[in-house]
Each structure stands twice: as structure tokens, then as C-alpha cells.
């Protein structure tokens, strides 16, 4: 095989001017002339890399599709299940209950009465604060009027 012809093809390959058929032909020529010419060896090394690189990428993509994405889906489903379970099962199967001095109460009427008395107490405190504010404002109004 004409060495000049091979070198011209190699130059065109490095310039990205070769067609697919020319690349196949060049590869055959390079494999036959291996270890005879440093330029041939260089071109062979590069062609070998470009052939290898796409399949490495394919391998990574395959790994992503086969393992990482399903693993991500499993973690997402698991975390959603944990949230749902925690939100709906907070220590007791009954949604309404109370404890007074360690005794469990599940009678809804009794619980409603407990809630009412607690809110009454808080309301009482809130009202006394509001009254205190009103009294203070009234005192200030009278003081201003007296000026």
C-alpha cells in the first residue's frame, strides 16, 4: 500500500474530511501497517479512542437507566410512604382521645367538654388582657382631656 496515500488519508481524517467509507478503509490500511510508521500508530491510537469513547458513554447511560433512576424512584416512594405513615399513625389508632391523671378517655362528649373548658380559660385570660388595655387607654384619654 502506498505510504503517501495512507498519510494523505490520515491527514484528511484529522481534518474531519473523510467519509464513513474512507474511515473504514483507513482503519483497514492502518491495521495492516501497524508498527511500521509512527504516524500510522498515532492515527490508530486516535481511531481506537474515538471508537471506544461512544461505547463508554453508552455504558454510563446504561448504568443510569438500569440502577440510578430506579433507585431514585424507590427512595422517593419510600419517603412518601414514611410521611403518609407518620401523618396517619401518630401513636394511637383512635383519632380522638384524652388522658387525665394517666386515665385514657375516648368518650367524645367528655373530650369535647374538656376542650370547651380549656378554651374558656384561655378566653378568660385573653378578655382580661383586652380589658386591661381598654382601661389603660381610657386612663390616657382622660389624662389627655384633662390637659
Amino acid at each position, binding site marked *: 500500500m502506498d505510504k503517501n496515500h495512507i498519510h494523505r488519508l490520515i491527514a484528511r481524517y484529522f481534518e474531519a474530511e473523510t467519509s464513513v467509507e474512507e474511515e473504514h478503509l483507513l482503519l483497514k490500511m492502518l491495521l495492516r501497517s501497524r508498527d511500521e510508521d509512527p504516524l500510522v500508530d498515532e492515527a490508530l491510537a486516535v481511531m481506537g479512542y474515538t471508537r471506544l469513547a461512544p461505547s463508554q458513554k453508552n455504558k454510563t447511560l446504561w448504568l443510569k437507566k438500569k440502577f440510578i433512576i430506579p433507585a431514585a424512584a424507590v427512595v422517593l416512594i419510600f*419517603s412518601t410512604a414514611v410521611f403518609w405513615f407518620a401523618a396517619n399513625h401518630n401513636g394511637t389508632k383512635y383519632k380522638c382521645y384524652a388522658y387525665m391523671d394517666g386515665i385514657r378517655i375516648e368518650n367524645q362528649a367528655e373530650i369535647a367538654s374538656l376542650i370547651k373548658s380549656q378554651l374558656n380559660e384561655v378566653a378568660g*385570660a385573653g378578655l382580661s388582657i383586652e380589658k386591661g388595655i381598654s382601661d389603660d387607654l381610657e386612663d390616657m384619654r382622660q389624662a389627655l382631656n384633662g390637659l
Partner: protein
Amino acid sequence: MKKKIFCILILNLVTLLAKAQEGLNIAPFFSDSYAGIPNVTLVSMNYDKNSQRGMKKYKSISVADNSELADKIKRAVTKDGTSAVNKEVSYVGGDLYFGFYSLGGEKGSKRYLLFLNRRPKGIEKTTLIFIEGDLDENAVKSLIKES
């Protein structure tokens, strides 16, 4: 890319777990671990969609003659109160007497804290109420005043 997916999933899991635990310092005081303590009243009420004017959850703890536990609750309320969207508080003699805290939340799940410490009035009794539901501040105040 793998690291980004992993980080997003971990963040998702942590967020969901935090939400499930309500993320409040006062949350542990509504657990059954306080149910057996003398002079402690615990109430837990979950309402279905169509009842109680938008209220979904009512939880309360009322502690009498237990200043240590009462002080723990007060410290937790004070911490949670720092992140309140809105609050109305009253101090007597330098001690937190009453607190109404609006903690915000998503539509349909707004959260409120009501705290009453009667110690400044000479009564060793502390009540903490947690309300969650589809109701604004005025609705909560109406609920308290009308009970």
C-alpha cells in the same frame, strides 16, 4: 449529575420527615409519654373535613402543680414563638402569662399556639393548646370567645 439527584432525594426525605413531625419545639409535649404523669391532662382531637368550622387538629396539654414541666413547656413556646408570623403576648411580673401565636402554614393547614401560665396569678397551672386547620386568626379568636 448523580450527586445532584442524590442530594435532591435526601433533601426531599428530610423535608417530608420534618413535616411529619410538625417541626415545632412544643411537638413532644403532645406525645403519649406525658400521658401517665399525675396532674397532666392531654387532649388529641382530629376533626374530619366537614366539622368544627375548619379546625382539623386540636391538641392540648394542661399541667398543674408541676413547675418543672410547666417551665419546659414555656421555654418551648418561647422558642416556637420567635418564628411566629404574628403574636399577641402578655407578661406579668416578667413571666410569660398569655400567648397567642400565629405560626402560618399552607392553605388549609394554618397553625396556632395558645399558651396560658397562671403562676403570676398565684395558680400553678399551665395550658398549651395547638390548633391546625383552615381558619384565620379571627376565626380562631371567635372559636375561643364563643366556647
